[in-house]
C-alpha cells in the first residue's frame, strides 16, 4: 500500500528520514526499528573531516528550532571505512547525502563513495546548506552551477541522484529545472530556511554564526508551497520535506505533488515517528479503499 518507485528502486514506504536528523543509522539502535522506514538519508559527508561551527549551534523557536552545525562530519574516508560496513547490514535503503565547497570537492567525495562498494541506492546532494561560508550555497542559488554539478555527478553514477534544494532563493523552480536538465532523478525540497534568534536579556544573538537554518513544523507551509510550485514545472519526482511530524502532514505533501517525503526535526523528539507515520498511512489507505498512497496525487482541488 505504501510502495513507491524512484528510478529503478522500489521503496517499501515513501517515508525517508532527513539528512542530519538520523545520524548514520547506528545512533538509534534500540530506539527505533529502521526496517519499517523507506530509507535513511545519512548525515552530510564531505571530502575532509569537519569540526563544524563553535557553540551555541542550536536554539528552540516557536514550533521549530534553528541550527548552525556547519556540516560537522567525519569525512568521506572515515565514512567509507567506519560507516559503510554498518550501513550495508541495515535492513532499509540508504541514500548518502554529500556536501561540498567546490565542484572538484563534490566530485572527489562522490567518486570515493561510488567506488567503495556500498549497498546504498543513491545520493542526495546538498547544494543548500545555509550554515557554512562555502556550504555549496553558491551552487544552490545558481541554476547554471546546479545544472553543471548535476551533470558531472550524473555522468559518474547509475544510482539515484537527488539534488536538495534551498528555499532561500528567488525562484526555486529555476533551480529545480536546472537539476532536471542536468539529469537528476529527483529533487528534495526544502532544506532549512535562514533565520536568527536574539536573547533580549543578554543582548546577544542565540547562534554563534548569527544566522542559522530554521526547521520543524514552523516551516511546513513554506515547504508545501515550494513542492507545489516545483510540481507544476518538473517532470521528475519531488521528495517533500519541511516540518513533517504526522501522517496528515505526509498526506498534505503528497497532495501538493510529492512522491516521497522525509521526516526530519521530529526525529530528535520521537526517533520512531517515521514508523508510526507508516502505520497511520496504511490505516488511511484502508479507510479510503486505496491500494496505494500515491493515488492521492493529483487530487488537490485548488
Amino acid at each position, binding site marked *: 500500500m505504501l510502495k513507491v518507485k524512484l528510478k529503478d528502486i522500489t521503496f517499501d514506504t515513501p517515508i525517508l528520514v532527513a539528512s542530519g536528523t538520523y545520524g548514520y543509522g547506528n545512533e538509534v539502535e534500540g*530506539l527505533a526499528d529502521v526496517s519499517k522506514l523507506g530509507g535513511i538519508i545519512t*548525515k552530510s559527508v564531505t571530502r575532509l573531516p569537519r*569540526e563544524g561551527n563553535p*557553540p*551555541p549551534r542550536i536554539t528552540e523557536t516557536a514550533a521549530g528550532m534553528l541550527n548552525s552545525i556547519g556540516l*560537522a562530519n567525519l569525512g568521506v574516508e572515515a565514512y567509507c571505512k567506519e560507516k559503510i560496513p554498518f550501513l550495508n547490514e541495515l535492513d532499509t535503503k540508504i541514500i548518502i547525502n554529500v556536501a561540498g565547497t567546490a565542484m572538484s570537492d563534490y566530485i572527489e567525495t562522490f567518486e570515493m563513495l561510488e567506488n567503495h562498494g556500498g549497498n546504498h541506492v543513491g545520493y542526495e546532494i546538498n547544494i543548500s546548506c545555509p550554515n557554512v561560508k562555502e556550504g555549496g550555497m553558491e551552487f544552490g542559488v545558481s541554476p547554471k552551477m546546479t545544472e553543471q554539478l548535476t551533470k558531472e555527478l550524473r555522468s559518474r553514477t547509475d544510482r539515484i541522484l537527488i539534488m536538495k534544494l534551498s528555499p532561500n532563493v528567488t525562484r526555486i523552480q529555476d533551480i529545480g529545472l536546472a537539476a532536471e536538465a542536468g539529469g537528476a532523478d529527483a529533487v528534495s525540497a526544502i532544506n532549512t530556511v535562514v533565520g536568527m534568534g536574539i536573547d533580549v536579556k543578554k543582548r546577544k544573538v542565540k547562534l554563534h554564526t548569527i544566522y542559522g537554518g530554521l526547521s520543524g513544523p514552523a516551516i511546513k507551509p513554506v515547504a508545501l508551497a515550494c513542492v507545489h510550485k516545483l510540481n507544476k514545472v518538473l517532470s521528475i519526482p519531488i521528495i517533500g520535506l519541511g516540518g513533517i511530524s504526522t501522517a496528515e502532514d505526509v498526506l498534505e505533501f503528497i497532495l501538493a505533488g510529492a512522491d516521497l517525503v522525509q521526516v526530519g526535526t521530529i526525529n*530528535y*523528539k520521537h*526517533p520512531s515517528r517515521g514508523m508510526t507515520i507508516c502505520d497511520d498511512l496504511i490505516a488511511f489507505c484502508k479507510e479510503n479503499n486505496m491500494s496505494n498512497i500515491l493515488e492521492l496525487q493529483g487530487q488537490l482541488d485548488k
Partner: protein
Amino acid sequence: MAFQESARVKSVEKIAHNTFQVFLESPQISKSVSPGQFINILPSDEWDRVMRRPMSVSGAEGSDIGIIFKAVGSGTDAMRDWSIDEEVDLVGPLGNSWSISDKVPVLIGGGVGIAPTWFLHNELLAKGVDHYLIMGSRTANEHFIEHAPKEKLIMCTDDGSFGISGNVIAGLDTIREDLALSEAKLFVCGPAPMMEAVREVAVSEKIDCEIALETLMACGFGICQGCTMEYVSNGSSADTYRNKFGLVCMDGPVFKAEEIKTCYL
C-alpha cells in the same frame, strides 16, 4: 544502549525552594544507569516544543530512577505538575558517567546541577567510600540537607544565610586542612559560573577533576550535533572531527577539567 520507555510517576516531592525530586518507575533505564548519566524527558503528551528536556539522574533504586529539578520554564513547570501514576516518555540512559579513582572523592554541586552529585553521594555511601559533599546555593531555602562539616557535608550560601558564607570554592577551602587536594578527585556539576570557578582551581592546582557539563540538546544521542563544547586546543590544525568540538551528549556530559576550554556553553 539507550531505551525509550514509558515510565510511571511514583512520587513528586518539593525538597527545597522551587526544587522538586521525582521518582519514576523505569525498569529498563534504572537497570543500567550510572551517576553522571542523563535522560531526555518528554514533559507531557501535549508537549509541542521540538526538543525534549534533558535531566541528570539523581538516583536509582530497584526499578526506580530519580530526578531533581527547579521549576523554571514550561517544561519543568509541567514536570512539577505530574500526577502520581502518570506515564512519562523517557529516553535513556544517555552519555558517559563519573569515574571513581583511588583518590578521595570530593563532590561539588550547585543549583540545578546537584542531581548527578547527589546520585554519586548516595552510591558512595552505599559502598562505604569516605568522601566529601559540598553544595552551593544563593540562599538557605535552596538547601535540602544539613550542614555537618564533621560528617563531611558542607553547605555554602552566597548570602551567608546557611552553612559556609560564600560559594563552593569557599567550601572547598574549608576541607584543605583535612585533605591535601592533590589526594582528592573533584566531581562537579552546577551552574556554569560555579563549574568554571572550580575548573580554574583544578587546572591551576593540577587537581584531578571531572565536570558534568550542561547545555541545550535536541536529541541527546549524537544525531543533531547541536550540544557542542570546546576542547582545550591540542595545537593540531589538521582537518578533524570532534577533536576541537565535542558533543556533550555523546563525548560527555562528563569531561576532565583540563580538557574543557570553558564551562560557559
